[in-house]
């Protein structure tokens, strides 16, 4: 899973929210703000080799709400598709995160 943080935005300290989180630029403003990891779903198509140039495309694909035992929970999903610069598919990853 070392690819996980490769394509995240590296933001200035003053762009972090008071809880220390870098808000994903893909997201709209949500009414709930306590962020948690929800899980991952990854397909690995080919190993990453030294000198590969990787290009990631991230798409916000789903937002939904569920009633949790301690109140509502907002879930969102982002699909990241990683290809080589030549267009060869390397991996796809669906991240689920939640906000309470």
């Amino acid at each position, binding site marked *: 899973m070392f690819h996980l943080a490769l394509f995240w935005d590296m933001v200035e300290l003053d762009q972090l929210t008071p809880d*220390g989180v870098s808000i994903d630029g893909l997201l709209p403003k949500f009414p709930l703000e*306590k962020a*948690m990891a*929800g*899980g991952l779903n*990854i*397909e*690995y*198509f080919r190993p990453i080799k030294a000198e590969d140039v990787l290009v990631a495309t991230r798409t916000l694909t789903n937002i939904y709400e569920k009633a949790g035992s301690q109140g509502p929970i907002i879930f969102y999903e982002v699909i990241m598709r990683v290809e080589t610069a030549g267009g060869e598919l390397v991996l796809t990853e669906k991240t689920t995160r939640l906000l309470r």
Partner: protein
Amino acid sequence: MNMSKLTNLKPGDALPGRDYCPDNVQNFMYSAALWNAHRIHFDMPYATEVEGYPGIVMSGPMLGDWLTQCVIEWLDGQGRMTHLEYSNRKAAYIGETVTSGGRVLSVDHDNGSARLEIFIQNEAGDVIAPGIAVVAFDKA
């Protein structure tokens, strides 16, 4: 002689697990490597008083990496993981010991692949991060 793990593999076979008892330092280093400054992972007053957790929260994807480690160590260089999915169902806190493990769900001898159930469990025996992995064995 180099007999492939795949040859005698059958559903139900166990994947050896590991116990993990990460301290603040390991949790901090993991979060730092992900560029994740969420204060629930290092700031005890913030985690407990503001977000209402009982302690410092173990990083969610760290559990995913331990699931990955369970599969990769079991594979022992004889193939690669082609699919991984897992959910963070329940939080774990610094001071707890959690345990990885898994078992073989199905084996496709023709394609040289296997589907695995993997998990991270807490001391109470709750599965806090269930997952599924698919591995492809190298051709002999």
